[in-house]
């Protein structure tokens, strides 16, 4: 590059100016790359056209942050060119549209803030948010995962919520991956697995938050791209919610010091992981939960004393994004003085202070007459705070440092990035037929599946996460004395109310058709919620995809988003918050399209919550839903290294009716225990119920309402919208009545012996005792 394009103008504060006007296209690209802006040529050209004078590095960095995929979600808000014409803004026209059409009165705030808010009891609202922290975890697993947890906790604080629980869903490469298969800076899955789990545990436990729900998946496509979803849930009295920053209010920055850690985290996250990713270790933030714990106390005291007018957390883009967003959403301007920021080290360049993503920081707007009281709280809670600047009416973001103006931007322009264009095809995925020979011994198949890395017990991980702290976990991730699985967590957050929050998740990346993959994830999240007694469910979407600039990735994204609209509406579950993480590609290739759906339901009385623990012998076992020959991507086929077959579909109307009927049956006290059918189908669901219990179960496969003639398919089909329900004997008739006209039939009963027995379609009998099931599933 011609040297004179980037000019040092102030050595004392290390400020540079960039002569965009003098740069040609090649040089514009080079500027973006050298400065780590991750902006496209079109975006650089837009900037070249905008600035009449030379912009400073601080200004250009502001655009790099604000216009990043991570911050502004340009793919979801951009145009998509398909063979059937251009589709605009898939976020607005699919995800948000579903919520808008349902127009639920109990949705208090959706897609507005750091987190979605829905009504709860006694004037409280629930705040929910799920984030991803994939790239940082791939480079530095412990720090990446810990700061992912820390970040999502601050999202809850950022809507004035008191965090009450966390969840995490993790996708790793197979732990037995051969080192020979690792290339180009990719770390071994075992190293990543250990670091990520330790990181999540360390942060959540330290913060005193129970980790109550989650999942762990293993697949080759995650070897180069670990996926770390961190969720946090919180509570706040509705009348304490405030976000009305006024002219004249002060912008107060509080929490940890600002340093060189986490510089360019968002631009790092908005590009593929390269072989040199390790050299960007400085893009990963350093966790310090102690600072966040103090920040939480201070934030909640500020809330309860009504001392602030607005709040936002510092995440991607650091001070630059937080200040810009707060000023822009209030229709104001802001003058920032960077000289007052508490630094971890000297000699940070202004742009580094401006974009650093150092952790555990929050930004508040406070009226000057409340400042003294607020500062007293910070002092008592031992939180460092500084007055960054004052909100004004200019509509501009102005930054000074040591009396030099280093940034002067029009916020309207900053928040109007050029629309991006992506390309996709609407062709449906074709899946070939499956020709798998029928096995001789179903017991062997069942035990193989029970020990499958994607199905076996997660106890070893769950026990390293505190799931009891705060003493409000009613239904836990490990059920009863045998540590069995549960479909969802139930929390009782208020002292004087029996109402509970139900947290569940659904994730099905192994399904090859992206449309039905998304539909299945929604159905699974909702049915997990319904299985324990949840209802009035809101959902959160988290997309983890490869590089959207490739047509095939974009096509699958488009199909998944279409399913999101269709099935959110069909199951009557509005989206309240979401996040997308694209560019999950490494030298080993892209991730499987992975959509996590998180369900937030409520239960009027937690004492009515249902678990998977069988209650007593002699109760009939009902199977709800239809079992089809849907095995594409199933755990069974994968265990046989087989492919093809039909993809599990969802009949929205039938699914909704089944779940509504189940909720009614639970409320009438007819349900003794219940478990949803997911990975491994009927065979695994039945085994897991026996594992959790002191009694056993016998089932007859000939009685299953199915559309297949093969016993192994009946046992392991992964058709959606199905539940296995133990019904109290005296209520069996009433239960059957509730399900009149719906697919529901008695397929067996609970037995005295603690074992699972079943008869296949040919009349062959099998029996496995619980001791062996447990040994296989959980390893002891």
């Amino acid at each position, binding site marked *: 590059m011609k040297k004179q394009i980037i000019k040092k103008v102030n050595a004392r504060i290390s400020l540079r100016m960039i002569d965009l006007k003098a740069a040609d296209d090649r040089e514009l690209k080079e500027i973006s790359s050298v400065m780590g802006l991750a902006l496209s040529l079109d975006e650089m050209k837009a900037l070249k056209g905008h600035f009449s004078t030379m912009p400073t590095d601080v200004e250009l960095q502001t655009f790099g942050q604000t216009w990043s995929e991570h911050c502004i979600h340009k793919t979801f808000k951009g145009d998509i060119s398909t063979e059937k014409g251009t589709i605009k803004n898939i976020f607005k026209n699919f995800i948000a549209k579903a919520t808008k059409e349902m127009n639920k009165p109990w949705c208090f705030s959706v897609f507005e803030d750091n987190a979605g808010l829905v009504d709860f009891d006694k004037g409280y609202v629930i705040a929910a948010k799920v984030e991803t922290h994939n790239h940082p975890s791939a480079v530095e697993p412990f720090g990446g995962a810990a700061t992912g947890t820390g970040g999502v906790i601050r999202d809850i604080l950022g809507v004035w919520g008191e965090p009450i629980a966390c969840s995490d869903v993790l996708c790793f490469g197979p732990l037995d991956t051969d080192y020979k298969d690792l290339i180009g800076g990719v770390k071994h899955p075992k190293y990543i697995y250990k670091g990520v789990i330790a990181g999540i545990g360390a942060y959540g*436990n*330290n913060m005193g938050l129970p980790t109550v729900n989650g999942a762990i998946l293993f697949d080759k496509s995650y070897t180069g791209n670990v996926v770390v979803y961190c969720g946090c849930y919180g509570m706040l009295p509705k009348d304490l919610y405030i976000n009305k920053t006024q002219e004249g209010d002060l912008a107060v920055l509080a929490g940890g010091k600002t340093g060189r850690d986490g510089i360019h985290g968002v631009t790092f996250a908005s590009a593929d992981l390269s072989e040199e990713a390790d050299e960007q270790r400085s893009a990963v933030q350093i966790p310090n939960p102690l600072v966040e714990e103090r920040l939480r106390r201070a934030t909640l005291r500020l809330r309860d004393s009504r001392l602030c007018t607005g709040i936002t957390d510092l995440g991607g883009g650091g001070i630059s994004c937080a200040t810009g967003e707060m000023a822009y959403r209030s229709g104001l301007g802001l003058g920032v003085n960077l000289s007052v920021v508490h630094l971890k080290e000297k000699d940070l360049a202004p742009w580094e202070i401006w974009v650093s993503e150092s952790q555990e920081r929050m930004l508040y707007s406070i009226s000057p007459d409340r400042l003294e009281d607020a500062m007293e709280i910070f002092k008592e809670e031992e939180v460092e705070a500084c007055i960054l600047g004052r909100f004004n009416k200019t509509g501009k973001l102005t930054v000074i440092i040591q009396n030099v103006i280093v940034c002067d931007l029009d916020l309207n322009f900053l928040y109007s990035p050029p629309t991006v264009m992506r390309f996709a095809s609407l062709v449906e995925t074709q899946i070939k037929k499956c020709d798998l020979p029928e096995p001789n011994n179903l017991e062997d198949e069942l035990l193989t599946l029970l020990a499958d890395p994607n199905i076996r017990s997660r106890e070893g991980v769950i*026990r390293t996460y505190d*799931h009891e702290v*705060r*003493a409000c976990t*009613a239904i836990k991730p490990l059920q*009863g*004395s045998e540590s069995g699985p549960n479909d969802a967590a139930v929390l009782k957050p208020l002292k004087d109310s029996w109402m509970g929050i139900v947290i569940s998740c659904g994730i099905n990346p192994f399904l090859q058709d992206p449309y039905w993959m998304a539909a299945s994830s929604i159905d699974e999240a909702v049915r997990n919620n319904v299985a324990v007694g949840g209802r009035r469910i809101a959902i959160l979407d988290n997309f983890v995809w490869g590089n959207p600039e490739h047509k095939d990735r974009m096509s699958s994204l488009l199909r998944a988003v279409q399913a999101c609209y269709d099935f959110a509406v069909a199951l009557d579950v509005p989206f309240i918050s979401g996040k997308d993480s694209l560019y999950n590609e490494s030298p080993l290739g892209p991730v499987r399209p992975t959509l996590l759906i998180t369900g937030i339901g409520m239960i009027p009385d937690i004492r009515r919550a249902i678990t998977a623990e069988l209650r007593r012998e002699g109760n009939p076992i009902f199977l709800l839903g239809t079992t089809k020959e849907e095995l594409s991507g199933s755990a069974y086929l994968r265990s046989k290294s087989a492919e093809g077959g039909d993809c599990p579909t969802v009949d929205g109307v039938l699914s909704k009716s089944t779940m509504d009927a189940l909720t009614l049956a639970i409320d009438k006290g007819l349900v003794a225990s219940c478990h949803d059918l997911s990975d491994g189908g009927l065979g695994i669901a039945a085994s897991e119920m026996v594992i959790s219990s002191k009694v056993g179960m016998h089932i007859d496969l000939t009685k299953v309402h199915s559309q297949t003639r093969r016993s192994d398919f009946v046992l392991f089909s992964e058709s959606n919208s199905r539940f296995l329900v133990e019904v109290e004997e005296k209520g069996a008739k009433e239960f059957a009545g509730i399900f009149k006209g719906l697919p529901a039939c008695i397929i067996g009963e609970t037995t005295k012996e603690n074992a699972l027995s079943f008869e296949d379609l040919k009349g062959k009998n099998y029996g496995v005792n619980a001791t062996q099931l447990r040994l296989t599933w959980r390893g002891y």
Partner: protein
Amino acid sequence: MKLCDAKACVLRVGGTNCDAEIKWVLEDLGLSTDILHMNQAIKKDLADYQMLVFPGGFSYGDYVRAGAIWSREILTKLKKDLEIFIDEGKLVLGICNGFQVLVEIGILPGDGENVSGIPTAVLANNISAKYECRWVNLKVESDRIPFFGLLKKGQALQIPIGHGEGRFILQSEDALTELIKNNQVVLRYISPDCAAAEGKYPNNPNGAVYDIAGICNRKGNVMGMMPHPERAYFGWQLPSWGKELPKFGDGKAIFESAVNYIKKY
């Protein structure tokens, strides 16, 4: 003392996080409770309180060693007040991180009188080297202390633990003999069928010597325990509800005993 005149104080510092649930259960039993940050506590008179609770959490991030930093702060800011408090026979309860703090300040096992500042025991890393969250079975070893008034010696309790540093160890065999002789071992880990845990995981979740889960000072008015009784207070907090949901869990008796003691005091 009338319960309406009595008050408990739950102390906290940065990193403490089990204070709210302790207030919840104490107030459920009718004992008014203040949660005070150390910065607030030093401005108040501890003499106004009948019970002091050091709750669980990760005080000061548990950097250095669990409870170490907070214990030094207490020694410099609250030593005298704490000594008087204990001397008067008032109740001090340390749970989890609170237990670690009481050991670090030298109150437990201690000589039973002074806040020595010199630890004679330690809550070391779990043998598994992992954080562990699980429900454990405990045996009551002493029913003479104020915290166990409603319990019987030999009774079994089910209460959860959640810690990475809970392995109670002493400096010598003699110290253990002394502790047992003085009836200072109050809670021990056992198996679900009430047999001795004998140091074996998971019944003894951390490898504590002599399966020790909780101890008291010689007088019995200061107790520290690794399990969290506040998480086993209500029946709905239990890991399995069985055929009929119980109203309360085993943790309730410990707080209720303390409250009863205050009423008589």
